[in-house]
Every structure is written in C-alpha cells, then in structure tokens.
C-alpha cells in the first residue's frame, strides 16, 4: 500500500498574466482558473502507480479558498482524497514558504512513499517547489521524469529528461518526482468519480492546523521577493556533436579559434 501524494496548483488559464504592480505577484481576479497542466500528468502517473502497485492517492494544494475547485476537478480523474491548505497568512508565499507549508501538511498526513508534482507551474514557471519540498522533507527527488519503472517494491528507475536525451537514475522511496508531459497521456475524468468528488469532504488546514507562526509562512515567511519580471533573453544557437572525445576536443578547439578570429 503505497502512500502517494500529488501536489497540484490552480493557475490562471490565460497566457498573458498580469502582475500586481505593488507585490509583483500574479493578479488572478476575473481570470478563469485551471489545474496547472503539468500537474495532470503528475496525477495520472500517481494513478498508474497506484493501479500497478496498490496504494492511496491524496491530492494536496495550497491556495485561496477557490483552489478547492481544482481539487474537486482533479478528484474527477480518480484520486482517493484531497486536502486544501488555505489561510490568509499563507498568501504571498514564495517557493520556499510554499514548500515549507506543503511539507508540514505532508508530515501531518503521516508522510508519503511517493510525492509527485508537475515539473513547474505555468504561472510562476520556477520549477522550485518540488525540489525544495524534497529538501525540506529530507528525501531524494528526481525532477523532469519522463518514465518510471519499479525495480523492486521501493526502488524506482527514472528516466530524467534532458535537453538532449535522458539520464537514467535510480532512487529509493520515499522520494519526490516532478514529471514532464512526455511521461504519460492523462486519462479522461470519469463521471462516477466526478459525482463522488462533488460530495467528497475536503479538509481545509490553516496556520493553526499546521502549527505555524504567522511570520513563518506566506509573504512574511518568504526569503525572496519578486522585484521585476521580464522574459529571459533568447538562448543562442546551440549544436550537439557526437563522437570520440579526442575528435570532439579537436573540433571544439578549431571552432573556438575560428570564433576568436571573427
């Protein structure tokens, strides 16, 4: 019976998100919310692991009260339970404060054998919460997983997607995995699960439930502050060379010389 937790996030649907000019956090009013697309792949992978190995899948999100919609929608895909972390004091959290809050909730849930997250959320695009959460819980993580294979009951072989090809790594449970879209094709929600999800009681945990002081979480507990948001400069042209190392070294030397001249 694996205890599987999937951390999901409700994000604004629109591509052109507006920022609050004062706090530099995302403005959400009037914009339709969706489940962060990568998280649906995390939910799917969790369900597949459960179906293959047995277990229970619990969804976890931190967000405003309306994030409950995202949990109910995600329950429609088949997870067993959901918990919402919501409190005024959690507002304005950076990636650290978010991970800290999620981590405490996971401890309160009695820990987990496997934690899934999407590779990143499409609003902030930081890709930090998953790895930070693993660090806080002191468990290993593999980011950007595109394939999971159980080698025995508590060992996973993971293909980690890289720019060119993939890394094959092994990890022992408990572990945290962040997934890319290549990992699976999410199923359709089921009507029966949706009906059940509509009535499912979803506990809401706040500051006191998690035993935090106000200054530990939310904006107050954040180490970082967004001061400016801008698109990164486009990456230059890149090339991939393959071959024996001495040959590549010679080729590189030649290229560098040419570049130095021009």
């Amino acid at each position, binding site marked *: 019976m694996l205890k599987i937790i999937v951390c999901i996030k409700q994000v604004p649907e629109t591509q052109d998100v507006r920022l609050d000019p004062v706090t530099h956090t995302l403005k959400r009013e009037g914009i339709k919310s969706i489940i962060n697309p990568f998280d649906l792949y995390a939910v799917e992978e969790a369900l597949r692991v459960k179906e293959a190995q047995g277990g229970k899948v619990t969804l976890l999100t931190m967000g405003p009260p309306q994030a409950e919609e995202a949990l109910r929608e995600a329950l429609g895909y088949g997870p067993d339970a959901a918990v919402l972390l919501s409190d005024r004091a959690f507002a304005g959290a950076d990636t650290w404060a978010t991970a800290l809050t999620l981590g405490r909730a996971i401890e309160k849930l009695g820990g987990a054998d496997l934690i899934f997250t999407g590779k990143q959320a499409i609003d902030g695009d930081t890709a930090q919460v998953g790895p930070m959460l693993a660090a806080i819980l002191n468990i290993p993580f593999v980011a950007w997983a595109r394939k999971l294979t159980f080698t025995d009951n508590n060992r996973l072989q993971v293909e980690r997607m890289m720019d060119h090809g993939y890394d094959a790594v092994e990890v022992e449970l408990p572990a945290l995995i962040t997934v890319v879209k290549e990992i699976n094709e999410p199923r359709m*929600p*089921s009507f029966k699960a949706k009906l059940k999800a509509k009535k499912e009681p979803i506990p809401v945990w706040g500051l006191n439930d998690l035993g935090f002081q106000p200054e530990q979480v939310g904006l107050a507990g954040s180490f970082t502050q967004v001061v400016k948001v801008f698109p990164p400069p486009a990456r230059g042209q890149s090339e991939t060379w393959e071959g024996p190392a001495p040959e590549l070294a010679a080729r590189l030397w030649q290229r560098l010389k040419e570049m130095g001249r021009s």
Partner: protein
Amino acid sequence: MDYLLTEEQQMLRDLARQITNERIKPIRAELDEEETFPWDIMNDLAQADLCGTVIPEEYGGLGLGCLENVLVLEALAMGCVGVATTYAASFLGAYPLLLYGSEDQKQKYLPPIAKGEALAAFALTEAQAGSDAGAIQATAVKDGDFYVLNGAKQWITNAGEAEIYTVIAVTDRVKGARGASALVLEKSDPGVSFGKKEKKMGIRASTTREMILEEARIPRDRLISKEGMGFIVTMKTLDNARPGAGALAVGLAQEALDEAAAFAKERHQFGVPIIHFQAVQHLLADMATKVEAARALVYAVARYIDTRPKDYTKVAAMSKLFPTDMAMQVTVDAVQVMGGHGYMREYPVEKMMRDAKILQIYEGTNQIMRNIIGLALNKEYSKKK
C-alpha cells in the same frame, strides 16, 4: 439558452465536451482522411463512464435517461459525427436487450457494453430491405436447442468491430411482419463473418460493413423476447434512438454555425469583416434560429420520453426529422458563408456537410419519418371525430 439542466446533467455534458475538445477535435480530420476506427476515443468514453449512460446501474451503467443521452450525443457530434455514430450505434444494439432482454441476457451482455469493454451493433437492413424492413430475407430456424441463421445484413454500423449484435431475422415466413424475431449474436459465433469496409461520403470514422450469416448456430436462449416480436423490438428501439439522431444533428449544426460565424468575423472583403454584410448576417441568423429550434425540440421530446409515455413514435420521428433536415441546410449554408475556404479540406465545414447527409438517411429516411408522422396524424384525427 438555458434549458434548466440539473447540475448533474451539466456535468455530464461538460465531460462529453471535454472529450470532444481534447480528444476528438484534434484528430477528426485525420480520422476522416484515413477512415480509421476511433478505438482510442471509444476507450476515452469508456474511461469517462459514458458507455453506459442509459444502461441501469445494476448492469454497470449510469441509469440515466433519454435527455442525458441526447446531451452527450450533441456534445460528441460537435467533435465528429463519425465518432458519435460509432458510439450511438452501440446503444442501438443495446436497446433491444435493455427493453426486451431476459434477466440472464441483461446480466450477460449489458455490463460489458456499459463498461465500454464491448461495442454493440444493430443489424436489420438487407440488400432488398431498406426502408421496407418487412422485406428481410435472413432466416433463423429453430433446431432443437439452437437457432440456425442464414442471410446477409447490409451496411451495419460497427460490424466487425462490435462484439455483440442484435439481429432481426425471419422465424416464420408465413406470418409476415409477425414472423420476424430479434436475436443476440456474438462476433465469435460460428458462421458469423463480415464483408469489406464500405467507402462512404462522410462519417468515415464510423465503420459500415456487411454481416454475413452462414449456418450460424446459436443457443436458443439468444432469442430476445418471443418469436414474432422482431418488428416490435425494432420499432421501440428506433423510437428510443431517434432523438439521439436529432441530437447528433444539433451538435453538428451548432459546430458548423460556430465555425461559420467565427470565420465571418475574421474574413475581410471590401474593407470590412464579411459579417457586416446583411446577406451574411441573415444566413447566420437563420442558421442560429434553426439550430435553437431543433435543440428545443430534441430536448422536449427526450424529456417527454423520460416520463415513460405509452406511445411516442410520432414525436420520436419528429425529433429526428426536423433536426436532421436542419443540419443538412445549416452545414450547406456554413460552407456558403465561408466561400472557397469552406470548400477546402483545411477547414472543418466541408466534412460537416458530408457528415450531415447520413443523418437524413439512417435510422429511417426522412421520407419514412414523414410517413410515420402522417400515419399517426391520420390515426389521431380519425379518433377525434
């Protein structure tokens, strides 16, 4: 328009729309071009629990009614009528069992259909028996504990893909229309084989084949209801299915309207978007009005059927006739609004126009619908005197 749907009905419709948007629309042109059977989408529908909408809960379905069925069909037809026909034909095959099957037959055949593990099909038409269903030649002859079937069923939707078939065959030629019976056949039964896939104008994601019966020997308990009930089973099955054909027409026409209207706002001629021309606006206005009228009729008839009235043959025929004629007109007009673009396969409306035509033909042609309605009126008005 708000049709006062319950929250549950809206959820069901939205789920079907999600499948349309995420799974059907991205590949509908490809399915049409390549004439591929949409197994992946059938699996999605199964995963979503939509294969059992009208099948009672005790047989693994959702136990919902005709209105819920038409809501799902309308939403799927917005994606592709070929796919939606595949899905709907399975219910056509299931209705005889649902309405007239024995407890054992229901236990055996309905759960796999409801779970989407097996598709069903309905086999009535033959080469010499189209509108004139009474002219069927296929026979089912009793032989001890078995029936032996011979004959050929033509243009059977899902034939060769489905596991479960309701076949209408003559058990007693002397009795004429009272001599036909409905029987369940399985794909793997001895003597059952299938012809080549037909090449069609539209609904190319749907498979249409001949079903050939050569000394097909099946146990006696495959008979649905009693001998001689074949045409009653058929009529009731079609009465239940016809609002579904109407719903396919509504979904299809709505999608064609959406495409045409969106195009008319984007396309500029003479310096303005073409939607500014009254001639175009009037075309769109008529299209929109007809779609809404058809939808209102389909929903009203479906709701009426859900009250379990005794006889609904006339209104069921109306709920097929008006929307399917409407969808033909509206899809032709959508192509007209879009001009040459509408005629190109790069845009989806030419496919919609090709797909619309079948709706006026199958499950009884629209001429036959008028015959049915006319016959009912004749009866009603002779009673009223």
